[in-house]
């Protein structure tokens, strides 16, 4: 752990906090991007080069943009009016605080975390590719199927139905 890792961790936490606490939804999405970028930096600093770059490509380049489009499509581009938080916010916040506290306490007391060995460098791209194509080929194929199903499903779910109030007006007959 060095200074850069500490800074990246703080940036990640700040982005995460901004993404759940801000009033403006687009600012929340941008905070999420900061958190993703910080995580990508952490992966790179941990020697997982391939995963770090995939994180940038998929999360910032695709997932983040999808979030932004969803915000714009639900007219959330401005600031939220009224209360930010749901009526049961006290209970929810209490649960979150309790869970985090228990996990952190357990973590700090755990004796088994003192692993000395640190991997020198991550596997090369060739090794990643070979293990994807040999050991993990069935998960890979399942993932391809899942992504196809998700893409088709998302299009069908988001397609306007006929009776919807939001459906485009039907052209008058004749």
């Amino acid at each position, binding site marked *: 752990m060095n200074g850069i890792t500490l800074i990246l961790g703080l940036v990640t936490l700040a982005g995460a906090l901004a993404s759940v606490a801000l009033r403006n939804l687009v600012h929340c999405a*941008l905070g999420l991007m900061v958190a993703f970028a910080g995580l990508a930096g952490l992966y790179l600093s941990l020697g997982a080069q391939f995963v770090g770059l995939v994180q940038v490509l998929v999360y910032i*380049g695709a997932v983040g943009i999808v979030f932004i489009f969803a915000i714009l499509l639900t007219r959330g581009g401005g600031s939220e009016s009224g209360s930010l938080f749901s009526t049961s916010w006290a209970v929810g916040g209490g649960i979150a605080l309790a869970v985090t506290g228990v996990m952190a306490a357990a973590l700090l007391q755990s004796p088994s975390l003192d692993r000395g060995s640190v991997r020198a460098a991550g596997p090369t*791209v060739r090794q990643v590719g070979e293990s994807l194509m040999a050991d993990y080929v069935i998960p890979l194929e399942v993932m391809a199927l899942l992504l196809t199903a998700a893409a088709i499903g998302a299009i069908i779910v988001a397609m306007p139905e006929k009776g919807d109030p939001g459906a485009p007006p039907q052209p008058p007959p004749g």
Partner: protein
Amino acid sequence: MLAFLQSLLQMVWKTVTDQPSPKSLFLSHVPEEWRPLVSAFLSVLPIVMVFPMLFALTTVVERKGLGRIQNRPGPNRVGPAGFLQFAADGIKAIIKEDVVPRAADRVVHFIAPLVLVVPVLLSYSVLPFGRNLVPIDLDTGLLFFFAVGAVTELAVFMAGWSSRNKYSLLGATRAIAQMISYEIPLILSALTVVMVVGTLSLPAIAEAQGPAPGGWLCRWHFFTPWGFAGFWLFLVAACAEANRSPFDLPEGESEIIAGYYLEYSGFKFALFFLGEYLGLFAASGLGITLFLGGWHAPFAFLEGWIPGWVWFLGKLVALILLFIWVRGTLPRVRMDQLMNFAWKFMLPLTLVNMLGAGLWHFLTNPIARWGLPAVLIGGAYVVLGRGLMPRSRVGPRVYRYAD
């Protein structure tokens, strides 16, 4: 002191003549703790100097070239034949007032140009400019390039949204839709090279396109059926990715004024302009590395005595001139044509092209190796191209009432 200067000159000489490890001798004169910093500085400095200069010259050449195409002189007042126009433009951009709309989101509005330019400059760090001239030889170079390029979409959205202007937002959404649609053919056409060469490292890809032992022609991927198709697909996708004409809908002046950077003025506008052109140069450089042999000469007898960076820069300038020519020639496409072209033509054709690259990789008989991918890709081109034709048949005009 003399030794220091000597090592500096030797570094420049080694860089210019393509010799390995140009920096090592010079770095040995630098104190131990400064070495990483100096080394990084020496890698970054040429990029930051050469490519913005190339951008400045390109703006002049583009305006003069477009002028010629449109039968007018173009800029011809500042400097010899108007070639110092970029200096006048730069000074104007710097001393202009920086206007920020009152309703704008000031922080996001300020950050957006930086988010555009910094990743574009980062993407140069993996391109091999010459035989031993690559800033970082990353094992995952190609993935790095595309990952960094994906951040551009975010910058465009930030600029369009934070301006609080409906034209900016429309331009930004158009730009993002276009970039996402054309990123897929861009990456898939680059993947063919990865399939055949078997590495993501860009210097290794450039290395693999050197002259064949005993042959007179270099093994550029452009000279194979899948590489030929892949290069043009890549170039079209890169053109759309950089919002260049004929894919410049995000900034269509006649509809949405200037798109996402409408509310930017002064130096921030110049940064957007710079980022767009640098992105185009980086994509062209990647296309050169992937398909046009990188720093290799086209013929074996030219290899070696002309330095690699000359070939790289020459190819880059040729591609820039091609882009200017295309901009002066083709009209802007419509939004539906843009999307149809991406999803119904480019995407299937890149998939067929990947199949062709696979066949090329595994077939050994030269006739089958050349013929099968060529027939496959050519057939797909014809079939998909016919699918793009307008459905309604245009026949001779029928006058219903005037007869």
